[in-house]
């Protein structure tokens, strides 16, 4: 056939991309933006045109030119390259937090939901009371003891987000475990671990995923906030929170580009993660109902 020999036109590639069923326009925009930010975090440092830490004080607050589309910061560093490098450090922390909190929260919730009785009551009590501590406060406390740095804040926030994750997973897991197919598997002699891994976890995954995406948004705000305060990621690393803090002096002197560009990146990223997370959660609840 001749059709097979013709080169693939861009229009044909576009036609293979279909809208995701059941997702509205805002959701699609959010998906695209999340993919964009994921690519930035993965490849940003590779495609950055300049060294993010190359200081040139003669170019302090220099305006944009063809090589430096957003211009220079106070120390004459290329803002665009710093934004691209910042994507990775701004998302890596939240990603580790979400992975850790999801794993820990899911394990605690499923153990509680499976064992029921006093084990569940004790776990639920501990988790509910730990919800009373704001995560950010816990992180600040850990920093006060251990000293500033990304490791201590990531560990503190992972612990702080675990109860949020566990609470949502627990109610979904209780519903799932009470279903007859789980009882049938028990009667057939499957072990609790097998039933949970093969049946319960895949069925509650949409709810876990939705909550995880939402948590990425919250954790990004927290990490950026802590970095802004000088408690999280430390300068001179390129990070959106640090750029926001550094850019403050520029705003006062009439050079707002650094603060505005970093702030916009944060706002767009956080909004798209929140909007997508909400939609996944809602869908998960609809499926579970």
């Amino acid at each position, binding site marked *: 056939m001749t059709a097979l020999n013709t080169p693939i036109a861009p229009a044909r590639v576009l036609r293979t991309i279909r809208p995701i069923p059941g997702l509205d326009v805002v959701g699609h925009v959010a998906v695209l933006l999340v993919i964009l930010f994921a690519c930035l975090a993965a490849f940003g440092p590779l495609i950055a045109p300049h060294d993010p830490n190359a200081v040139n004080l003669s170019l302090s607050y220099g305006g944009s030119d063809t090589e430096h589309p957003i211009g220079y910061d106070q120390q004459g560093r290329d803002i665009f390259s710093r934004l691209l490098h910042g994507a990775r450090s701004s998302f890596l922390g939240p990603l580790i937090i979400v992975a850790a909190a999801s794993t820990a929260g899911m394990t605690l919730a499923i153990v509680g939901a499976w064992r029921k009785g006093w084990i569940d009551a004790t776990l639920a009590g501990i988790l509910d009371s730990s919800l009373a501590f704001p995560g950010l406060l816990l992180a600040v406390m850990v920093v006060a003891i251990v000293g500033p740095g990304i490791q201590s804040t990531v560990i503190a926030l992972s612990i702080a987000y675990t109860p949020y994750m566990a609470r949502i997973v627990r109610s979904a897991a209780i519903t799932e475990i009470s279903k007859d197919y789980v009882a049938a598997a*028990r*009667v057939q*002699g499957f072990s609790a671990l097998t039933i949970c891994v093969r049946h319960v976890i895949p*069925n509650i995954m949409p709810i876990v995923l939705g909550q995880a995406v939402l948590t990425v948004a919250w954790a990004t705000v927290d990490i950026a906030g802590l970095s802004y305060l000088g408690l999280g990621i430390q300068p001179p690393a390129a990070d959106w929170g640090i750029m926001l803090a550094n850019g403050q002096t520029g705003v006062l002197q009439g050079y707002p580009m650094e603060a505005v560009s970093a702030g916009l990146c944060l706002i767009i990223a956080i909004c798209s993660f929140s909007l997508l997370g909400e939609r996944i959660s809602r869908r998960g609840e609809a499926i579970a109902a």
Partner: protein
Amino acid sequence: MTSSASIVEVSGLQKRFGNHVAVDDVTFTVPEGGSVGIVGESGSGKTTIARMLVGLEVPTAGTIRVGGRDRMPHASVAERRRRARELQIVFQDPYSTLDPRQTVDSCLDEVLRLHRPELNRKGRLSRMNDLADMVGFDSRQRRALPRRLSGGQRQRVAIARALAVEPSAIILDESVSALDLSIQAQILNLLAEIRSETSIAYILISHDLAVIRQLTDTCVVMQHGRVLEVGETGAVLDNPQSEYTKLLRSCVPGPGWHPTRLRNIFPGGS
């Protein structure tokens, strides 16, 4: 009745939930290859008995002997697998009885992997073919997820899943109650066929006297967690000794039946 050994022996079984006694002093036996019905209204403790038999609930008092061995709580993994090969259960609700993410074939395959580890892929496939034939599934249905199947089809999958273990007895806990009459008849015929082909024993739990009559030899009538009457099914249903069994019988709609007649029997009912 034959005098063969019994597969299930229940004696003095009791279950309390807090202050509520759900099952009290229940005793009955199921002979090997026999078929025993348990009838009673909703809340009479039928399902609790079933759940205790398969180990999903722990009895407060009394003993359950299956295959001549006592069923104690907290069994080892090997012991639970052995128990699985003695007693299987098919539940009432066809909509939650299957994992929504699992096709019919993968559901059966999972069970065969656990209970017939000696079979290779080919062996499991041939066993799956047998099981699917037994419950009347074609190859397209076998690749389907549960949401593509009707209630009756799902119950047939649940039956095939229970049969895959090759148990000595199957508990059918209201397994046909949620289905409409023609599908109910199909499943009942299927169960009767399976019993004539294999030497499997049934414990049939139902509130439907017609179902009990069709499939069981012996029947146990229960009310408020207690056994009121035990006997040969035909005799119990045709010539009931207890007032309650007479009442159950009179609740079955038939020619000339009218709910107002029940007013005389149910004091205070409207």
